[in-house]
């Protein structure tokens, strides 16, 4: 498994490489959401030096298509590893213009089954970034039944939703104040919380806990999962480095580690970053059984 870090804008990429990170993922300025963005000029400088994946994962509008097409043309001339995309205009333009770009299907919550992976693979898409909302077993089954190379998020705040609306600005306009922070935390009745932030492309909501992929990575390694994504955004640098060291160590030594050693590593990581494993071991439901009435339950 290769590790791809989503760095913070001013992170030391050399340090990451020295720790064993294989590639980096940035957003392309003006065309991405929830990734730190870099301009084409910066891509030009960074691409020859570092293994780079780039993301153009926003919903595209007609008026942006010309610029998008020009950007794709430019990107195809840089030595980048692959381009994460959400909007199908990107697939359409890359195919039509026969651009030598490796594409990563990154429709955030829709990469959920092997049939659709195979569909996009047959359209020329080599990679897929699996949705965070499927289980580990589902990921492994997809891996077994597609030729697509797959990414899984192992660390970082998971993306929950994205809107074109400026939800934070709108709220503060209503209370007649200016937003004072970049990210706000929303809480409801449960202990779970959400993080909300705005950009020019709209509003993104993240879940309030970081994914800890230490336990599932063992199964993913056993099943030859191709890439693990480690998202450093919103994470203290020291913690991020510890996470990287742990994952790199697991990758090197997992075959020799006893169950006890593995559990110790998992426990240690749980202490550091929490034990939230997202949907790796939790299946979502969608058909809700109706509550039985008291009579049906045998009560009054």
């Amino acid at each position, binding site marked *: 498994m290769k590790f791809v870090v989503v760095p913070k804008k001013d992170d030391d990429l050399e340090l990451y490489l020295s720790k064993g990170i294989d590639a980096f993922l940035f957003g392309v300025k003006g065309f991405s959401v929830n990734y730190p963005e870099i301009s084409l000029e910066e891509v030009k400088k960074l691409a020859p030096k570092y293994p780079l994946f780039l993301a153009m994962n926003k*919903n*595209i*509008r*007609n008026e*942006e*298509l010309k610029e998008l097409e020009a950007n794709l043309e430019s990107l195809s001339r840089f030595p980048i590893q692959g381009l994460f995309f959400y*909007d*199908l*205009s990107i*697939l*359409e*333009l890359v195919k039509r213009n026969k651009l030598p770009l490796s594409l990563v299907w990154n*429709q*955030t*919550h*829709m990469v*959920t*089954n*092997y*049939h*659709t992976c*195979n*569909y996009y693979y047959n359209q020329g898409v080599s990679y897929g970034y699996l949705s965070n*909302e*499927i289980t580990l077993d*589902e990921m492994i*089954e*997809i891996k077994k039944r597609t030729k697509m190379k797959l990414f899984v998020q192992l660390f970082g705040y998971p993306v*929950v*939703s*994205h*809107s*074109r*609306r*400026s*939800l934070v*600005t*709108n*709220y503060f*306009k*209503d*209370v007649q*104040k200016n937003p*004072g922070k970049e990210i*706000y*935390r*929303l*809480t*409801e009745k*449960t202990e*779970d919380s*959400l993080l909300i932030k705005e950009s020019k492309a709209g509003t993104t*909501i993240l879940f309030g806990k970081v994914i800890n992929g230490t336990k599932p990575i063992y199964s993913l390694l056993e099943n030859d999962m191709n890439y693990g994504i480690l998202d450093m955004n919103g994470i203290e640098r020291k913690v991020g480095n510890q996470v990287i060291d742990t994952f790199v160590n697991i990758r090197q030594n997992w075959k020799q580690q006893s169950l006890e050693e593995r559990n110790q590593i998992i426990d240690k990581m749980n202490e550091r970053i929490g034990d939230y494993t997202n*949907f790796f071991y*939790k299946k*979502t*439901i*969608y*058909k*809700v059984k109706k509550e039985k009435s008291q009579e049906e339950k045998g009560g009054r």
Partner: protein
Amino acid sequence: MKIVKKVELLSPAGDLERLKIALLYGADAVYIGGREYSLRANATNFSMGEIKEACDFAHHLNKKVYLTVNIVFHNEDLDGVFDYLKEAYEAGIDAFIVSDPWIIQYIKQHFPRCEVHVSTQASTTNKEAVLFWKEQKVDRVVLARELSLDEIAEIIRDTGMDIEIFIHGAMCTFYSGRCTLSNYLTNRDSNRGGCSQVCRFAFDIDSEEEKKFTMATKDLNAATLIPTMMDIGVRSFKIEGRMRSHYYLATVLSCYRKIIDAYEKKELTEDFLRLQLKLLNRVANRETSLHYLTHEADETDQYYTGRQELSNQDFLAQVIGYDKENKRVILSERNYFEPNTPVEIFTPSGKTISFTVTQIYDKEGNRLEKACHPEEVLILPLEEEVEKDSMMRIRIEE
């Protein structure tokens, strides 16, 4: 010669009764969910037998039925889907509405009579993405609800695709398909029909503000834009809300049917449009807006200023029969009314009959002072014959 297709009014239908109301009140087609693979997993939905009955009913009226198969599939959902599609096809479905693209090829290959419509769940927002779908042999694209009229016009002009637009009903706060709030806060899979509408919750925010943070949006009402949308070539006008009431469906469809027909006949006047808007506003339970169709959505399109959900009391009764011999209408009561109440009955064929209630009788012939028991059978004298399934409401003046 280019064939100009007639514009379509497309209605939701949560069950057979609603489907019949929708088609009788002017829908050209209805979209329904089966018991599987639909984004309203917890609605009543249609059994295969009911799908067959729905198709027979619609086809008899020369109208169409579309089946939503628009979940985002997980591996476990794949078993049985092909048998399900085949059964639905044999039941007479005219089109499948899908969001997961692998299914398109299968439908096109095996069920050539059927159309494939790409759901708004795919959030198609530009003409190149529409061209992608066109190459996949898709027959129609339901565009994302985040587009302006200009963008829609450009897409139609430059792609030549059949385009369907949402014109009325509730809106998602987030791009369709790009929201898993339900998954994270209630463990219900929004992209497989389990959406628990977390976007309508009120949250505490970590700022000094005492006011709760909400992100719910107003509903959409695009009645005033129908002429423009017809001019730019929108093929299908879609109404949201598979679980809305009979009265809601009848009112909304009746209004849009009249607007479309009047514009086609070049008879649409401002007064007529104003009346239809008034009727639509009265049946709405939330405030409405035009959202992205006319402007970049902002704080005025949301419920930050305090949310009002109104309960409509206009609907008084549904017509269940007419006694020609004694010139009496037979009703099923819905809301309170009494003698001297000014009312009107609007019919599936578009007529509106205004009168004042004089006497009310129960089915045994006893005279009543008031009607106050929902679903009670009532009888009122009425000279003019009215069709079954007509709706009686409080008279709404222009």
